[in-house]
């Protein structure tokens, strides 16, 4: 079935890159006419030094070439990376390399301005460092594709969190970063165009020479080995080449997230199956997409300059969602994802008891210990009455939100039977954020309970979209994550345009998005705590569903689960939990993904024990993060969400490293 629909649609869709390119060329011609630059074209043989001629030959033309070359390189890099990792989601952005580069650029701008000259050194250093960390973390798993993607996501989230903090604290110094990350293709000479074109030619050559071994990566590892290929070496070569190509583009024109991913996904959907086809098509499609985006923006420049990078996702995300929805293809899910959790002998009750003790200790420390200019102080009983009104709403807010996010991650993983599903990764938190952005910008200030309601509705809408799109493929990880990435990229794109156009007022928004519990009031804390308590009370009622649903819908249905009812209940629960937690601590992109994993790793596997364990661990993690954020950089207050990301990643790295042995 799927095969025939592919064949039928093939001839029509192969025209896609050409149609896009022709559109872009028409736009370019229109631009030249309206600006009067077309007049300078007649002097093609001898560009003179008149302003118009310079604008055409050193501005518009190199910009055109840069868009094509950068898009082509990104498309090629993405295909290589996907081939190397055996995963249709891989992109320099999704495995965290763009985020590490962004972080190194921010660090260079603030502390080592000498090296920040052209961003080339920091970007290369960042990509290399990211790659080393990523491969180091994934080495024990023999670079298992999904494991590597997960590590990449974790790495990216941590780096993004730290970068947000740097933007928050150094807003005025980091204007260059804000501009660079918006991905402007504006040119004033041929250097970048020449460099990127040469790189594209070189990369294409290498891919052509290596096409045989790279194609063999389509097979599983043992068959590839029997054909005389070292899969590890071929993968390393593919990933290394891809990272190099992407870093070159990033260093010279800024962050162009999603271009390569969109191109590669479109190529697949257009019917390119073999590696060579996919490489050619995704390069062409990415180049055409980027060109079209940039030319549209160039037309708009007379009104307002908008860099291409901020809008690539605006173009690409809806297209991707549409194609995902309309195509009936079944993505390959050959390689299952499993963390190989060892069976522990420690009884469940002891583990839960341990978590509870940790939770209580963390709460007590967070309430009693603070920091003044003189240092850390343990509040005396008399002072507590003065300090508690400050501390308890924050502690309670962190507690409730951490528990909620961890719980909704756990519920989603159980419902879809997919260990990568979590509110952050499938776009539910980002969806809530997407709804919140216009609310913050355009509506008069709302009370927090009103915002909670709006965010919960936003979370529900995007959860329904994500699940609807992924349902046909039995919640295949690729589909779920692709939907999530599209929504995340969309909200990221809105945010970076807002930052690009906005002023210092945006620091408040960034602060909220970083997961700050600063402004949580007593009423907010009470509402959140009440909801968390109510949810915990429901858990025993749905534990049977939670136990059976990971086995897949047919199995669960045959065992007497009312699938529709169960799904509806869990969806509503997840949406409410995520929406409210998002308002309290921002779309913390970490707790919901990592805590359920950690809880499983320490040996809690039964539904009820796992969910309760997630609440306890998530709450503890957020309380500790909040306390550290409050004290570590006194008098500066570091958002709890940022701290949580760093702690969560470290714990995650240690546990996965240990359990792999």
């Amino acid at each position, binding site marked *: 079935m799927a095969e025939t629909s592919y064949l039928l649609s093939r001839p029509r869709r192969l025209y896609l890159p050409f149609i896009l390119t022709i559109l872009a060329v028409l736009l370019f011609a229109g631009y030249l006419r309206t600006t009067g630059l077309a007049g300078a074209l007649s002097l093609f043989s001898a560009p003179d*030094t*008149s*302003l118009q001629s*310079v*604008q055409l*030959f*050193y*501005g518009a033309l190199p910009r055109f070439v840069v868009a094509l070359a950068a898009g082509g390189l990104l498309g090629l890099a993405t295909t290589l990376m996907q081939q190397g990792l055996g995963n249709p989601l891989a992109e320099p952005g999704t495995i965290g390399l763009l985020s590490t580069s962004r972080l190194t650029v921010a660090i260079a701008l603030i502390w080592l*301005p*000498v090296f*920040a*000259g*052209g*961003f080339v050194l920091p970007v290369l250093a960042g990509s290399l460092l990211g790659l080393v960390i990523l491969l180091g973390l994934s080495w024990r798993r023999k670079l298992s594709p999904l494991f590597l993607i997960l590590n990449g996501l974790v790495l990216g989230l941590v780096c993004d969190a730290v970068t947000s903090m740097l933007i*928050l*604290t150094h807003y*005025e110094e980091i*204007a*260059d970063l804000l*501009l*660079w990350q918006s991905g*402007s293709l*504006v*040119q*004033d*000479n041929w*250097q970048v165009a020449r460099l990127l074109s040469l790189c594209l030619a070189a990369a294409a050559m290498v891919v052509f020479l290596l096409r045989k071994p790279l194609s063999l990566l389509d097979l599983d590892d043992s068959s590839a080995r029997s054909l005389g290929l070292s899969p590890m070496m071929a993968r390393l070569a593919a990933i290394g080449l891809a990272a190099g190509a992407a870093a070159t583009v990033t260093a010279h024109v800024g962050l162009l997230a999603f271009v390569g991913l969109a191109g590669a996904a479109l190529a697949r959907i257009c019917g390119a199956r073999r590696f060579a086809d996919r490489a050619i098509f995704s390069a062409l499609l990415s180049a055409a997409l980027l060109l079209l985006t940039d030319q549209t923006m160039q037309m708009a*420049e007379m*009104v*307002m*300059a908008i860099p291409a990078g901020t809008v690539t996702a605006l173009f690409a995300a809806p297209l991707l969602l549409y194609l995902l929805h309309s195509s009936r293809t079944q993505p390959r899910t050959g390689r299952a994802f499993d963390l190989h959790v060892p069976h522990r002998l420690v009884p469940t009750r002891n583990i839960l008891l341990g978590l509870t003790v940790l939770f209580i200790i963390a709460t007590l420390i967070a309430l009693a210990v*603070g920091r*003044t*200019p003189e240092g850390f102080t343990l509040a005396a009983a008399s002072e507590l009455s*003065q*300090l508690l*009104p*400050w501390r308890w*709403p924050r502690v309670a807010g962190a507690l409730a939100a951490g528990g909620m996010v961890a719980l909704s991650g756990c519920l989603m993983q159980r419902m879809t039977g997919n260990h990568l599903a979590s509110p952050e990764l499938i776009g539910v938190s980002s969806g809530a954020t997407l709804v919140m952005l216009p609310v913050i910008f355009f509506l008069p*200030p709302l009370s927090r309970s009103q915002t909670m309601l709006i965010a919960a509705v936003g979370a529900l809408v995007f959860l329904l979209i994500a699940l609807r799109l992924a349902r046909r493929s039995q919640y295949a990880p690729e589909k779920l994550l692709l939907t999530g990435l599209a929504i995340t990229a969309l909200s990221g794109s809105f945010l970076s345009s807002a930052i*690009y*156009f*906005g*002023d*210092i*007022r945006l*620091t*408040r928004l960034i*602060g*909220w998005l970083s997961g*700050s519990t*600063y*402004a949580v*009031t007593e009423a907010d804390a009470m509402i959140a705590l009440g909801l968390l308590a109510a949810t915990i009370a429901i858990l025993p009622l749905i534990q049977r569903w939670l136990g059976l649903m990971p086995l897949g819908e047919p199995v669960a249905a045959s065992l007497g689960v009312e699938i529709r009812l169960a799904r509806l209940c869990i969806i509503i629960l997840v949406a409410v939990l995520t929406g409210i937690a998002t308002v309290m601590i921002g779309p913390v992109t970490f707790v919901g993904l990592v805590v359920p994993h950690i809880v499983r790793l320490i040996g809690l596997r039964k539904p009820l024990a796992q969910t309760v364990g997630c609440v306890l661990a998530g709450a503890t993690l957020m309380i500790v993060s909040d306390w550290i954020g409050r004290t570590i*950089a*006194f*008098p*500066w*207050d570091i958002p709890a969400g940022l701290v949580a990301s760093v702690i969560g990643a470290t714990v995650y790295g240690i546990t996965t490293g240990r359990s792999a042995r």
Partner: protein
Amino acid sequence: MGAALAAPLAMLSARWSHAQTARSIAPQRLVSLDLLITELLLTLGEVPVAVANIPLYRRLVASPALPDSVEDLGPLNEPNLEFLQRLAPTRVLVADWQAPGLVPLTRIAPVLPIKMFAGKTPALEHCENLLSDMAELTGRQMEAKAAIATTNAAIDAARTLLSGFSRPVYICRFNRDGRNIALFGGNGMLGDVANRLNLRNAYKGRVNGAGVTNAPLSRLADEPDAVIVHFDRGAETDVALARLEESALWHALPAVRNNRVIRMPVIYPSGGLRSAERFATQIGTQLAKRADG
């Protein structure tokens, strides 16, 4: 001439208001969470107990200088609450856009949100209104009047200097990449000072709330007769200029060919009256040198 007239007035008023403050107002313990508010308070001679983000103030605004006695509360949007409580302020002045995130502060002291982004009102007029409001609050009406007079005198003096100057002016900052710039204009502080100096701002497009916009370098080609005034942010500007040296477009700009590019010390673009005064004097003397060009 205006400056000469204003100087004795300022001295006079300083003596006046001391007497008045001593009589009517008990000493206040003010806290400011915004750079512009801090600048305006110091302009009035009112030293706050604590402000947020001292390093940022010292780097961006610098003058009037912030005394060492002032405590640092940390981030602008999230000042340290427990520390603030110990300082026992009598009033906390915040920007209106910060206020919704600062509800907990109201338990320490009354929070006064101040409208920072004027919208349609020109920035200088808005600053003068803000200064007068703060003068009411601190009982320093005389200082406020003196400060406004000094600024106006400086602007008048600069305008007189520039009476023979007819070229349009780009006010900008070069980005490190040498391909993009930040342009100032509209009703923002820098744009408004330029208007009051009767300078023609060569950039007439949209700007954000702070009176600035990002644009590609080619925007500077729109007005061939213009003079380019750009701010010196030290190493960053050196890198930018080195890159521009290699740019064909840069060298094709009429202003560059005819040496009409002026580098001047950086001014905080959302600053108050003191910043405006410095900018007016700076741009007046620099441009007057080229009035013939």
